[in-house]
Structure formats: structure tokens, C-alpha cells
């Protein structure tokens, strides 16, 4: 009779017994509020204002998914697949 494949059924407590308790895998933003406030702020991380910079366009379609092309613009609305 062929051996049936047996899947291991260990749960966290089994793993803990063998390897010790895992540290909590959460990011605690309160430990470094000043730093995280910078890292999570895209405007601070990428401050260059490109609205006055010149560019060269090829023949391909130019999208409006961000402000890269735009000096002044109407409100942007994102769409999603349906």
C-alpha cells in the first residue's frame, strides 16, 4: 500500500516549542514618529517641482496618471477595472 502523503499540521505553538517565540511582526510607528512622518510623506521624499521643466515627447500616448506632464490641471479621477 502506497504511503499516503502526510501534511505537517504544526501550528504556531508547535513552531514556538521548537524554535522559540517569534517577535511580534508589527511595525510600531510610534517608536520613531519623526522619521516615519518623513518616510511616509511622498511630497517630502520627492520634493522636485517639475511643472516648469522642459521635456521631449515621443509619438506615444501621454497619460495623466500623475502630475509629470502637467503645469496646471483639472481634478484627476482614477478609474479601476470592472
Amino acid at each position: 500500500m502506497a504511503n499516503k502523503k502526510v501534511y505537517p499540521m504544526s501550528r504556531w505553538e508547535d513552531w514556538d516549542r521548537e524554535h522559540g517565540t517569534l517577535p511580534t511582526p508589527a511595525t510600531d510607528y510610534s517608536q520613531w514618529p519623526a522619521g516615519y512622518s518623513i518616510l511616509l510623506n511622498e511630497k517630502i521624499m520627492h520634493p522636485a517641482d517639475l511643472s516648469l521643466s522642459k521635456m521631449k515627447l515621443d509619438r506615444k500616448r501621454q497619460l495623466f496618471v500623475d502630475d509629470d506632464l502637467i503645469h496646471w490641471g483639472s481634478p484627476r479621477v482614477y478609474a479601476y477595472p470592472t
Partner: protein
Amino acid sequence: MKDAQTFGMYGIYEANGWPYESRWLGCLSMTAYFPHPNTNWITKRNWIVLAGSRDGHTWFYLGDRHPFIPNGPGDSWDAHYIRMGNMSNTGAPLLENDKLWFYYYGNYGGTTDFSGLERSDKGRWQFAGGLGTLRRDGFASLNASTDPGLVITRPFVFTGEGNLSVNADVADDGYIKVAVLEEDASELPAFEASNCNGVSTDTIEGGISWKQRDNIGELKGRYIRLAFHLRQAKLYSFWID
């Protein structure tokens, strides 16, 4: 998914990037792990957000990190886990009849014990394929209602022959007209918005011309701006070929 961020096990699970027209886009599969109530298991969620890049090196989340393809509701087949299909082209959509087709796969049942076994109250994970469709270039639009809107580009030179087209959805009482501007934003004679034969319908490829000019070919090599005047319209893209 702010709750997921609160729990902390949150981040990019899979990053795909693909060239789309003049830029890079990507569908990121995001992940979050939640402690599962009353057990030591965790409940896992994966969903898709859109990202973009100009150079392929520096990437930004698009759409304020809102799900591009969200998990389905309740006990639907894709309620817990979604990743992109089409891995032969790194998750890029297919263009079919002026629609973008996004294939993805997902499941119900994102509860996992640490051994790697994946279970749910419906049994083993049951994967299925999904298809989402989007208008060509339809990732984002610049919109105007009955209050006219204005979009002015950065100054640019173009490599095409000067035939300007737009992809736009214009309501019956709306329009998109275009003025060509000098680098200092002054209107160029013969290319004013008042002389523009604009677009007044829903079109994937609507040509723009002016009463005295069919195209902007004579401006090749000069830095210009385009000023799009919108009313009751959604502007998805433009190009100069």
C-alpha cells in the same frame, strides 16, 4: 485597508512593472497579515494597487494607494487573495478592442498557519481566475463638469509629425478644445482655443485641428505647451504623431 497598516504586517508582496505607451506602470500585489481571532493562525489579504514610473527605477504609488483591483465582497471567490495573471508579460494588460484586459487570480480563504499550510472554513484554498477590463488609457482622467476646466502642460518639443489626438469621453453638451501656447503660456496665432475644431464625443482617438491649421507640424522643434479646455469631459490621454 488602514486596519492592515495598523496591524503592521503590511507591504508589497509582488511587484510587476510593464511599459505602457510613454511610461511604466505596474500592478503591485499588496499583502497584510491579521491575527486570526481565537487561534494562533493569521489571516492574510492580498490585493492590487497601481504604481507608475517614468524611468523604471523610481516608482510611485498611483491612486493614493487605493486598491486598483480590490478583494471581492463577503464570501466571494476573490475575497481574500489576488495576484496578477499574465505572468508571461509580468502582469501587463492585453489590448483588445480598445479595452485593456487585466487577468488576475485569487481565492477565498486567507487563513494560514505558520507551517505554510493554508486553510479556511471552506477548506483548502480554491483559486480561480478573474478578468477586469478598463478603457484604453483609462487609468486616470482629468475631468471637468459644467464648470469648464483647464489643463496646461509643461513645455515640450515633440518628435512626431504634428498630428494631435486625444482619448476623451465628452458628454453631449461638452467639448474639449486645445490651444497651443508659447513657452511663456501666451497663445500662438491660429492655434487659439476659439479656432479649434475640438472633440465633442466619446472617442478613443479624436483628432484635433484648427480652422486654419490641420496640425501643429510647423511648430516642430519649438518648445510649446498645450492648453486643454474641457467642459463636461474626461481627458484620458493625448499624443502627437
